[in-house]
């Protein structure tokens, strides 16, 4: 990729490659010219969010917490490496290693962000550098700036000040997050007790727990359906009123996907799975804290009507659980859509330890979704990086990548994941703590699935690199990074999406298989595979629901992700199926 023959490389801004050359106006201008549809859409969106504001803020906080966890990990890395050196080589070497690692990390960050520099520092300084030298100069420049900022934050009180400031805003958000929302346990309570007269006390409108819970459950789905429908409407409003182009190739993809009934089925199932995970606190029959995590805590006490004494008494969830265990014959099995002796309604029955199945299923969806999301994000990022690097530099880098990925690929994936999961769960690794090993598992998946992902996009990216439009972009002097981003990445990205959605299905199955064997996500974090394992000896008894329901959930969700992958593949490339068969051998 030599650019030396171009005397005067043109700016990317001068060459509009997104088809928007004919209309000079910006998105903001188009909104200004015709604000009505956008304003209506936005107002309704705000109205939709308002009653559930606390929930949205909670999600944001959870996401922020996750990002902070990863960020903290990165921040801790230099000191950790430094302390390793310190142990063996002494204090000076340790401090040196810490600084070098920190600088290296900042340099990588600088290299990633360099393209977004709004000005060229070398021209400001009056230096006349060649292109490649300028790139290095800018990287160095940015690294210095970052290092200076970091030093200021670390060594002056400014850092503490900033942290306090952030803490204050998080506190404000926290209190907003605690606000009662429309579809919540507080607004529509489903856990009450029966008076001797037979009425229900403490439930929503005095309904029986069954119908109170069902009201909330249905409300979640109605709300989610309306909300997602409105987001779709937003895209339509944008497409109709504010987009510069009347048509883009992506429109065709979306239209094909909409008419692909199998793919639509996949979308519905996947969205349902995501809603189930996100709304788990509202869908769960009982607060997970009281029913599962701390059943003997003070808060976990509730009133119930004791039929023997004819009085309303108090009980802990923990004690009540012991009497509602679904373990097969002779135990106090509570099956689907039944009440237990304590007047607790179990929409999906109870688990073999007497906990509520619905609560387990809803929070189990959360576990699976988080693991799948984190691992796919990391794997996609690494695979993209690797494929760019190996395609760009070729030669020895490419060969090393091939050998490295071949190493991982040639170990059967389940054997590999099981090995790493057992090994890391046996030592007290700090990283195994979040989600009872869920985060560790996500990292293991990212490591184990990334090579396969890299393989799957290697062919397409080599292929697209030889396309005429890439040559054309090169010939009028677009920069390599811009070419990759604008002309190669979209093509490769579609393969990543297809592969990713198929992988998520695999990840859900492997996660549950690991918990089935007693590894991966351990108790008490709910996981679908553990439910299958817990109920496996009672499948043929009255407690059949434990294994059957959880397994069916996995099967449905995985089918959904597979269908989504098929749908997207057919939508992006209608000839893909035929090609896939042809490529299956050649590209292997």
């Amino acid at each position, binding site marked *: 990729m030599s650019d030396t023959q171009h005397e005067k490389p043109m700016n990317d801004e001068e060459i509009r490659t997104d088809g928007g050359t004919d209309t000079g106006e910006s998105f903001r201008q188009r909104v200004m010219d015709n604000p009505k549809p956008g304003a209506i859409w936005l107002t309704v969106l705000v109205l939709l969010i308002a009653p559930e504001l606390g929930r949205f803020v909670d999600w944001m906080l959870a996401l922020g917490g996750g990002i902070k966890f990863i960020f903290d990990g990165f921040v801790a890395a230099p000191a950790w490496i430094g302390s390793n050196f310190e142990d063996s080589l002494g204090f000076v070497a340790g401090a040196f290693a810490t600084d070098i690692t920190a600088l290296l990390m900042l340099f990588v960050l600088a290299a990633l962000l360099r393209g977004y520099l709004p000005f060229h520092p070398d021209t400001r300084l009056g230096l006349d550098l060649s292109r490649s030298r300028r790139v290095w100069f800018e990287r160095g420049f940015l690294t210095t700036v970052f290092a200076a900022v970091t030093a200021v934050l670390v060594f002056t009180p400014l850092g503490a000040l900033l942290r306090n400031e952030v803490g204050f805003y998080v506190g404000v958000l926290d209190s907003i997050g605690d606000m009662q929302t429309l579809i919540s346990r507080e607004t529509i309570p489903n856990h009450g007790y029966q008076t001797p007269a037979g009425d229900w006390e403490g439930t929503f409108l005095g309904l029986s727990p069954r119908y109170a819970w069902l009201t909330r459950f249905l409300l979640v789905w109605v709300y989610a359906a309306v909300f997602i429908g409105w987001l779709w409407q937003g895209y339509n409003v944008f497409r109709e009123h504010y987009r510069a182009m009347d048509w883009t190739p992506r429109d065709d993809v979306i239209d094909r996907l909409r008419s692909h009934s199998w793919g639509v089925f996949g979308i519905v199932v996947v969205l349902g799975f995501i809603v189930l995970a996100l709304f788990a606190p509202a869908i769960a029959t009982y607060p997970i804290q009281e029913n599962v995590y701390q059943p003997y805590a003070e808060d976990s006490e509730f009133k119930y009507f004791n039929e023997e004494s004819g009085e309303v008494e108090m009980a802990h969830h923990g004690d009540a659980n012991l009497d509602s265990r679904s373990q097969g014959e002779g135990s106090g099995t509570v099956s689907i859509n039944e009440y237990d002796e304590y007047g607790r309604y179990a929409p999906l029955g109870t688990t073999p330890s007497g906990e509520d199945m619905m609560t387990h299923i809803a929070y189990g969806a959360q576990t699976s979704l988080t693991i799948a999301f984190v691992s796919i994000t990391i794997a996609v990022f690494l695979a993209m990086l690797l494929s760019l690097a190996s395609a760009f530099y070729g030669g020895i880098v490419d060969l090393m990548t*091939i*050998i*490295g990925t*071949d*190493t*991982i690929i*040639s*170990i*059967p*994936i*389940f*054997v*590999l994941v*099981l*090995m*790493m999961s*057992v*090994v*890391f769960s*046996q*030592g*007290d*690794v700090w990283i195994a703590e979040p989600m009872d090993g869920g985060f560790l598992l996500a990292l293991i998946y990212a490591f184990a699935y990334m090579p396969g992902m890299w393989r799957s996009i290697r062919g397409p990216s080599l292929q697209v690199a030889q396309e005429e439009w890439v040559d054309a972009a090169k010939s009028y002097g677009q920069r390599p990074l811009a070419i990759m981003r604008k002309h190669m990445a979209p093509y490769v990205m579609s393969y990543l999406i297809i592969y990713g959605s198929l992988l998520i*299905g695999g990840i859900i*199955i492997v996660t*549950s*298989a690991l918990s*089935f*064997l007693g590894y991966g996500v351990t108790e008490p974090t709910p996981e679908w*595979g553990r439910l*299958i394992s817990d109920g*496996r000896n009672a*499948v*043929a008894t009255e407690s059949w629901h434990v*294994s*059957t329901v959880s*397994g069916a959930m*996995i*099967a*449905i969700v*995985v*089918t959904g992700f*597979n*269908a989504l992958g098929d749908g997207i593949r057919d939508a992006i490339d209608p000839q893909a*199926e*035929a090609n*896939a*068969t*042809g490529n*299956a*051998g*050649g590209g*292997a």
Partner: protein
Amino acid sequence: MSRWRYVLKRLALSIPVVFSVITFLFLVLRLGPLDPVAARLGQQAQGADVQRLRENLGLDEPLWVQFQDYIVETLTFSGESWVVRNGAEVREMMFEVAGPTIWLGAWAIVLPLFIGLPLGFYAGLNPNTPSDIIANVSGIIWRSMPNFWLAVLALAFLRSTNGGDGPFGFNWYTTGPQTQSAVGTPTLNFATIDDIFGIPMLTGMDWSAFFVDLKLILPAAIILGSSSMAAELRLGRTAVLENVNSNYVETAKAKGLKGRTIVWKHVFRNALIPIIPIVTNEAFILIGGSVIMEQIFNINGLGRMYFRAIQTADVPLAGAIVFLFTVIIISLNILQDILYTIVDPRVGYDQ
């Protein structure tokens, strides 16, 4: 590049991969947080015992020496088990349990091949008919069901038929050869092999023992092969569809060949090409799946031994089994590439 040079290059490229696998295993198993000493002596063990054991196991040697030893041990499978059966040769332990796994794997490849492919071909020859749609949809759903869940359900069903309680008086225990248990390890001593003039030959078959072994393995093999069965079905279908519409079939029709001849001589042969990677992929799935299947169906095979080894921090045994699996996969991949150059000369080894 000639075919032989391609093969040589392919083999040469696999050598660094094998070494990097060994290095990876060493890093994870030996240097990872696994603690074989604690597994042998319990978490509380201290003092001289621990020290002696560490010396015995060679954990106090310099890392470089440990690594050298590990490479040699792994390549020759000459390690000794640390925990599962203390001091036993890893090679012999693996030999003992390899039989049931091979038996399971062989049936798990053969059964889907003979169910999935014909179904797929049938669906492809009759596209968009109800039977095609049923085959397709059930294949997709089948692919999405976790194997271990199917196994749990199947086992529960088979067990519930004990005493003729199944539907239509079906009793798994008395169907075919009588068995005591629905699960267990096949003994695999149905074949008598004698040396005839110094060459081991099959001299006798105990068919009833054969069928007992088959019956023990059948549910596990069907379930283990289920996902590959679905894949074969889909692939067989598309392969046939693609070939049926191709030009050479038109030509064959034009020159007046009978439909049957076209299908057998032209369509199937070409449709078989993309099936090759499926079989190698299958091995990949089978090995991973055997761990959990053998656990559920109580089969004393390699997969189960691997699980026990890794659980008890038996580093040499676990490492040896993973290495064996990996070598199998690598050789299958090479074999597949070579087969490809023979079956379909268009598939380039010039790339």
